[in-house]
């Protein structure tokens, strides 16, 4: 045992020196990890070998065996000490006074403590603004130009089958991320009331998935479907991005767009419903 442990400790010492050398030489992650492992492992092996040897058959005379037996006292206290505790509580209670006025005072304390507890919760409100209408609006407005990296997008830039991620003007806030796709206009079958939202087969949908908010970045041209890579929700682009597969339960909101006089793609208004993941009062119109 002594020999093996000594070998392990020697390896450990050498590894420590090696570690210092590697560090001075500029460092190298694999070498650092392996040398550190050898350094620590050598000590660990030596300790383990010695520890397992304790109390073995070649122990010194007078040394006890490895495995011994001891008493395990009962956990619950004896009746005496328990009674002492009860008596001390009684003593304290008598000192505090038991009559009605004192008991009534206790209720005042309780009320004050409760009020303090409630008041102490109020600073939590400063952690964040009240949601208000923030979840219901994005930065898109009537006339907002669809841009990529600050450059406005011309309708002519997109051929059938092209897809772009666009934002309103210079505002790149996450909730305004929009997917702009050109499809064959004859195959579009949008829900009622969206006439004029998709000029020449150019459709725009929110890029934020209505399941848990991942960007719906995959456009499958052959099936005209937008696929979310996180949990595979699939949306039918030709039919108002309604969910056809996966855990999403609501269509991707559609952005009403048009083409302005200079040929740029602009929005007609903000999205008409909250984008992204759902929340408890989403359907309530404010």
């Amino acid at each position, binding site marked *: 045992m002594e020999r093996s442990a000594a070998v392990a400790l020697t390896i450990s010492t050498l590894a420590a020196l090696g570690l210092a050398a590697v*560090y001075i030489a*500029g*460092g190298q*992650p*694999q070498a*650092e*990890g*392996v040398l*550190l*492992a050898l350094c*620590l*492992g050598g000590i*660990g*092996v030596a300790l*383990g070998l*010695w*520890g397992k040897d*304790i109390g073995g058959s070649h122990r010194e005379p007078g040394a006890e065996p*490895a*495995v*011994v*037996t*001891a*008493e*395990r006292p*009962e*956990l619950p206290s004896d009746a005496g000490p328990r009674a002492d505790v009860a008596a001390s509580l009684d003593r304290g209670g008598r000192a505090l006074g038991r009559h009605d006025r004192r008991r009534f005072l206790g209720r005042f304390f309780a009320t004050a403590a409760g009020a303090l507890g409630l008041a102490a919760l109020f600073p939590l409100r400063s*952690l*964040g*603004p009240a*949601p208000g209408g*923030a979840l219901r609006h994005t930065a898109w407005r009537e006339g907002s130009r669809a841009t990529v*990296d600050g450059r406005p997008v011309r309708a002519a830039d997109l051929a059938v089958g092209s897809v772009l991620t666009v934002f309103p003007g210079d505002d*790149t806030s*996450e909730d305004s*991320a929009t997917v702009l796709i050109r499809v064959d206009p004859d195959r579009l079958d949008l829900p009622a009331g969206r006439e004029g939202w998709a000029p020449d087969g150019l459709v725009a949908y929110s890029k934020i998935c209505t*399941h*848990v*908010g*991942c*960007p719906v*970045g*995959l456009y499958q041209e052959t099936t005209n479907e937008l696929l979310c*890579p*996180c*949990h*595979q929700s699939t949306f039918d682009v030709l039919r108002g991005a309604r969910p056809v*597969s996966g*855990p*999403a*339960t609501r269509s991707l909101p559609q952005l009403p767009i048009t083409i302005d006089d200079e040929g740029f793609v602009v929005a007609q208004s903000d999205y008409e419903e909250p984008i*992204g*993941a*759902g*929340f*408890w*009062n*989403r*359907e*309530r119109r404010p």
Partner: protein
Amino acid sequence: MLIRPVLRWLDDRVGGAPFFSKALNRVFPDHWSFMLGEIVLYCFIVLVATGTYLGFFFEPSGREVVYDGSFAPLQGVEMSAAYRSALDLSFDVRAGLVMRQIHHWAALVFVATMVVHLARVFLTGGYRKPRDLNWVVGVTLLVLAIVNGFLGYSLLDDLLSGTGVRVANAILLAVPFLGPDLAFGLFGGEFPTEDLVPRFYILHVLVVPAIIVGLLSVHLALVWRQKHTQFAGEGRTETNLVGERLWPAYAMKAGSLFFLTVAMLAALGGLAQINPIWAYGPFRSGLATTAVTSASQPDWYMGWLDGALRLMPAWELRTEWFTLPNPFFGGVLVPSLFFGLLYAYPFLEARWTHDRHRHNLLQRPRDNPGRTGIGAAVASFYLVLFLAGSNDVLAGVFEVAPESITALFRVLVIVLPAAAFALTRRLCRELQASGLRPIAEPGGPRPQPEPEPEDPRGGVRR
């Protein structure tokens, strides 16, 4: 040696020799499966040590900066200061990358060994009275470890972890009534915000670790006070302890385990690349403002949550006045039910079996077929959820559609636990009947005389 003079010096000031003498002689049952909890503790020590080192270099700020370090593909790219500091640590600080990797591997192994430790305690009945209290502490530690791991890898503000935070935001939003307020309160506004990183940082390095240290101390103090359980067997009873003394045997072995655990984590940290944030890119930057990578998964201990989200069919409760969004079921309901049952289990089992006695002896898994069956069912449930969370990776490996994998797992998540339960219970019964490796007759010193029946503490049972 130095030890005795030092001890004398301390005792002159603090006293406590009686306690110390009892401690040195304390007997610890030495079965190998009792060392699992220790491994968890050692992983935690590594996390704190490496984490402190990382804290000297990490900049917990969501402020937008431009990268100017040595990783060429990201030169001149906009990113948060947090992400940049992580890149600098990985490429331009000596031993920075290996420290980061050891920290992350330690986190994965920390939660993994915690689960194995929990499984050992569960399968042997170690959670029964009086250790039901410690079980509650332990389950809380598991929840905190998972939460802290999520907060930790989300701090780096890279594309992969940022996608995970999106999901967390949506799960918070799905909480009835309080959802939007919780989400806005945590992030300081509508996700994503610049406040995200500093808040996660304070939670990850201070608040949650402080609670973990406190609860861990309670956990260990309870084990010290109640003394460890032991398996039934030769010479072992409910009222004795058979094992090794703290000094020197137990201490040597504990020390050995500590060094070997850290050595293993160091080896992983140097040899196996983990979380290569430079390959994902920052969460948001100039041209890639709202991006995502396919095959996005969270770290393994969150995988079951992602799997639950993927498996849940497209149900949603939607009326004019109230919506219960789809992520609620997988993201809020399933974890609440699961952890609720986990917390309550010792008390439920005690009720079910009408068992109000204290137990210091452990059962072998085969000795309680029903419980072991439940354990197998839970393990297989978790396994299906975890696999479901990687359904797109599996679909790529097996060259089938992800929808097929999801459909299969929707069936398996019900069928497999039921089958596992029945099969395991049967197996346990057969093992018992076969007489394979029987417990040797419990011998040793006679137990104390039975106390009076009126004694409120109850009797001693094997």
